Every structure is written in structure tokens, then in C-alpha cells.
């Protein structure tokens, strides 16, 4: 089984997010291959949701385009099963609780395990609600990724102690999207995490440039980039795979 932990075995990890089905699933498959070929350590596959309340405008519109194009969970599963034959980079699904819940958590998660998906990121499942999904994830060997936010404060220790796979540090208040500056004291959050667990942590929300990637990779075990990649998919459509590949390489090179 390909685990999330594998992504953090070769130095600082670069985590790349894409929205499945934007512009279409065939292009998504090509994007996954390019992201993998260009050195990403973990690929976060977004399953679109009608109401992605943690997303800024870039990823939200990618969700809308993908759904308008007829993408469903089953079609995404079929695409990933195919891609998995060639791509061995660790992968996780990022989506909203309702997508998993409505599908049936057991059916969803068991299929994930069968296609070597290492874990799930569900931004609307906080610590207090995680048992419902975490139990099934554990049963099938997936990690349910925990998120820590700038507002988490005294909750960090509690969350870190039970964290599996990796900890997603949300760098800023608000929603996903490119930001000029990140003002949260990431060092303090990482320190509290380290005091409580050996589970690696990566920083996401707002990171888009190699300089930012370098800066935040130095503070944690990796960086997560979403909106900047999704924006390339929006801009270049079917021609996006190469552009995204080049971008991923520049980001991975920056944190080596």
C-alpha cells in the first residue's frame, strides 16, 4: 500500500492539489502524471462539491466547472484506478463530508483503499466529528488528515496527539486562495505540534511562489499548493498538464 507517510520520507514534501474534472477527467489524468513526473511528493485530488465552503473563488469555480462537465465520484474513481497503474506517487482525496457520507463512508473508503489512496482530507470534519469517518479509515488503512488553523490555539495539542498521515496547517484565516503575505506565527504552531507528535506537518492556504514555498517548507515538513495550480488548469485547459508540470518542478526545486 502507498501511504501518506511515504511522501515525507525524502526531505521536504511538495503537496500539489488539483480539482478532478477541470477541464475534464482525461486532462486531470495527464495533470496527475505531470505532477508526479515533476517531483511532487503527495497529490491531493479534489472531488468537486456543489458548495465548497472552505474554498476561495479559484477552486470554487473549478468545482463548478467540473460539476457542470458531468463529473461524479464514480467517474473520478474510474480515472484514478486507471492512472494508478502508472503513477506511484502517494495520493489523497480532498472533498467535503457530504460527498463521502452520501456515497456511504464504507463503500467510499474501501474503494479508496483498493486504488491505493493514502488518506482523506475533509475540511468540514473537525476533531469532534472525526470518529464517524476515522474508524472506517483505520479499518481500511487510510489516514484521515487533521487540520490545524491559526485559531486552533489550545486545541493544537489535542488534535496533534491523534493525527495520522500528516497534519495540514491552515496558514491563514478565511478560504483557500493565493495570498501576498501570511502573518500567522507558523513556527509557534509547528513547535506545539512537534511537542505532541511525530506526525509530519505541511503548510497550505495562500502559498503560490517558489519563495513562499521555500520559506514555509523551512518551517514545517512540507508545503501544500492548490489555487495556483488550479488557476493554471483554468487558464490553459487541455494544455495545462505541461504548464502545471513546469510549475511543480519550480516549486519542488525551491524546497529541496
Amino acid at each position, binding site marked *: 500500500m502507498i501511504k501518506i507517510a511515504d511522501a515525507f520520507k525524502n526531505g521536504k514534501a511538495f503537496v500539489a492539489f488539483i480539482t478532478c474534472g477541470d477541464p475534464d477527467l482525461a486532462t486531470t489524468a495527464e495533470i496527475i502524471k505531470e505532477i508526479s513526473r515533476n517531483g511532487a511528493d503527495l497529490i491531493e485530488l479534489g472531488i468537486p*462539491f*456543489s*458548495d465548497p*465552503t*472552505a474554498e476561495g473563488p479559484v477552486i*470554487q469555480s473549478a468545482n*463548478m466547472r467540473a*460539476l457542470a462537465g458531468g463529473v*461524479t*465520484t*464514480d467517474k473520478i474513481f474510474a480515472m484514478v484506478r486507471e492512472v494508478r497503474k502508472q503513477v506511484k506517487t502517494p495520493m489523497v482525496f480532498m472533498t*467535503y*463530508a*457530504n*460527498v*463521502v*457520507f*452520501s*456515497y456511504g463512508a464504507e463503500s467510499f473508503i474501501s474503494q479508496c483503499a483498493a486504488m491505493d489512496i493514502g488518506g482523506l482530507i475533509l*475540511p*468540514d*470534519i*473537525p*476533531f*469532534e*466529528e*472525526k*470518529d*464517524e469517518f476515522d474508524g472506517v479509515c483505520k479499518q481500511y488503512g487510510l489516514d484521515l488528515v487533521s*487540520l*490545524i*488553523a*491559526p*485559531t*486552533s*490555539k489550545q*486545541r493544537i495539542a489535542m*488534535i496533534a496527539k*491523534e493525527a495520522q498521515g500528516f497534519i495540514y496547517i*491552515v496558514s491563514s*484565516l*478565511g*478560504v483557500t486562495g493565493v495570498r501576498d503575505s501570511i502573518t500567522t506565527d507558523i513556527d509557534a504552531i509547528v513547535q506545539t505540534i512537534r511537542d505532541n507528535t511525530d506526525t509530519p506537518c505541511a503548510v497550505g492556504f495562500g502559498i503560490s511562489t517558489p519563495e513562499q514555498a521555500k520559506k514555509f517548507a523551512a518551517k514545517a515538513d512540507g508545503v501544500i499548493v492548490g489555487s495556483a495550480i488550479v488557476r493554471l488548469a483554468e487558464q490553459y485547459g487541455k494544455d495545462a498538464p505541461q504548464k502545471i508540470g513546469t510549475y511543480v518542478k519550480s516549486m519542488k526545486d525551491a524546497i529541496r
Partner: protein
Amino acid sequence: MAQSKGRFGMHGGQYIPETLMNAVNELEEAYEHYKNDPTFHRELTALLNDYAGRPSLLYYAEKMTKELGGAKIYLKREDLNHTGAHKINNVLGQALLAKKMGKTRLIAETGAGQHGVATATAAALMGMECVIFMGEEDTIRQALNVYRMRLLGAEVIPVTSGTRTLKDAVNEAMKEWTNRIDDTHYCLGSVMGPHPFPTIVRDFQAVISKEIKAQMLEKEGRLPDAVIACVGGGSNAIGSFYHFIDDKEVKLIGCEAAGRGVDTFETAATVAVGSPGIFHGMKSYFCQDKFGQIAPVYSISAGLDYPGVGPEHAYLHDIGRADYVPITDEEAVNAFEYLSRTEGIIPAIESSHAIAYAIKTAGQMEKDKIIVVTVSGRGDKDCAAIARYTGEDQHD
């Protein structure tokens, strides 16, 4: 071991981003403290009575009763509250709570605009900043309320994502809260969202059933046989039901917006056509497809045009304590006209869904039966839209 809070059977919970967890925990803590604080109660009661005009009347609709020829019909007149709807009950409570928590800014979603107007009103009264999120489609349907909110000093942000209605307004208000928490309270307008909102909003709206019970005992010396209210998220309904939940002989009936009918896609009758899901911070019933994508619902009523229902209603449905019935646009519009003509009361199009059910059923009930229908709001805001609706029909 994680512990899920705020459950109504399987429903409820706190399905929200980690960023908001401390905020809802602080809110819960503050609420648990102030709900037992006599000073808070005194202040809130003073606001409700002296400012909002409570208690609201329980009016015997004699003409309507005689015309329909069955059960005796009482109307709980939440439309007579200051700002014209039940929404003010909850807003005054939450604004007072927010103020005590040291918050200086209120944000809220609104559908029909009634909750937005109530929030803008409380913000003006208490000297707080106010931002209202309203679906662009609803800013058109309810243009008068947009003006009222602005007049009251609130900023109104038209939401252009998704279906541009109430659901999207909630999305944007939640996003704004994750963006600015320190000084901001999200004044949620219905018995929905993450715990503790469904409980807080219910408790502040429960004044409706508390009054109905006392007024009914005074006027009739007994409890009503049924209480009827419209349900979108379900705040006026839960408020109307709450103190009767343990009185098993009182039937509780929630009227959902069926739009063009529950056999069409243009409906918002969640209990009738929805399935269990997780959305907007709660587990409950939602209109959705088999992959969990939330459905683009429809109702003529902007206030009921919502793809979910509050978790306590979902629970009352599950245990069979309350019945939820679908009422179409057409039935609601007929009821809107009927009550105006018959009793000289222009109900909100939302409330007209409850009136419609009374019109459908009162005549079949015995004359010694008593029903209470909550008129959750007044219909001035709807006159233009209903005129357009009936005008279009004439062209068909």
C-alpha cells in the same frame, strides 16, 4: 476520543472547518452562562416587550373559521412584531449575547430579507457594525428589504455564486466568519448550522410557543389540537412547536415549500424529497443527488428556498412527533390572497404556506377542534412579487 455535540438523534453536530471551532465553542460557553443569568433575561425580555412589541397577539380568525366550516382557527401574529416577522426574537437574543461577548460586528445571511432586516435593526439599536449576505436572485425578489437593510446602516453584499439564493448566502456568511472571527458574531437566522446554533435559535424562538400555550389556556382553557407553521430552516416552526413537544395530544405540522410540486425538480420540500446528509455545519435532511451534490432548490418564497432543514425538525420527523407536509407555490399564493381578503391580514409568502395547509384541512375537522397557525411574518415585502406571479398566470 472525540466527542460530537449538539445531537438531535443522528442529526446536528458541528461539521465546520477547524478555523471556526474555537468560535463556536466560545459561543456555546457564553450561551450556557448567560441563559441562566437573570440580568441577561431581564434585558432580553425588556427588548422583546418594549422594543419588539411582544407578546404577539393570538387572534381568533372568526371569519376564516366560519367560511371553512370546521376547526376553530387562531393565528399567532408574529407578523405584528417590530420589523414584521418572528426573526427579531432570535436576533435580539443573539445580538445581546454577542455584545456581552465583546463582539462589535454582526454578519448574517438572509433569504427573504426578514432576518437581514432584523439583524440590521439590532445592530443599529446596539451600535454594532453589520454586514448581510443575500443571494443576488433574492435581492431582486425582495428589493424593498435590501433598501431597508441599507437604511438601517447595514452593508448588503449580493452573493453571485451557485443558485444565488439563501444556500449561497449561508456559504458566503460562513466564509466571511472564517475570515474575521475576533470581533464578529455570525448571527445565524434559523435553527440550523453547527451546534450551538440550532439550540440557541430554538431557545430564543421558543417564546412563540410559550405565549401560544398561555394565551390558548386563557382564551379556551385548553391546549390546541394542532399547531401549524411553515418550515424553511425551521425557526418559526420550532419556536411554535417547542413548548408543545411533550404535549403528545397537540399535533405539530410543518409546511414545507414544494415549489412547483414534489414530483418536479423545482421544489424545496426537504423532508418530502431529501435524504440524510452533512451540510452547513449539520447532519440533517437535504435535497441532493446520489453523489451528495446539493440540489438547486426552488420556491416562490425566498425564505423557504433552502435545500436543508434544521436538525431538530429532522429528528421530530424521524420519531414521528411532527408531520411535514409540502405546499406548492400555487397553494401558498392562493392562501396569501385568501387571508388578505378574508381577515384583512396580508401574510408573508412564507407564512402563506402554513395558512394554505389550514385552508386545506380545517374544513375537514370537527368544529370543536382548535388549530393555531403561526403567521411568521407580514406580506408587504411580497406584494410586488405576487402581483408579478399572478399577472404571469393571466397571460398563460
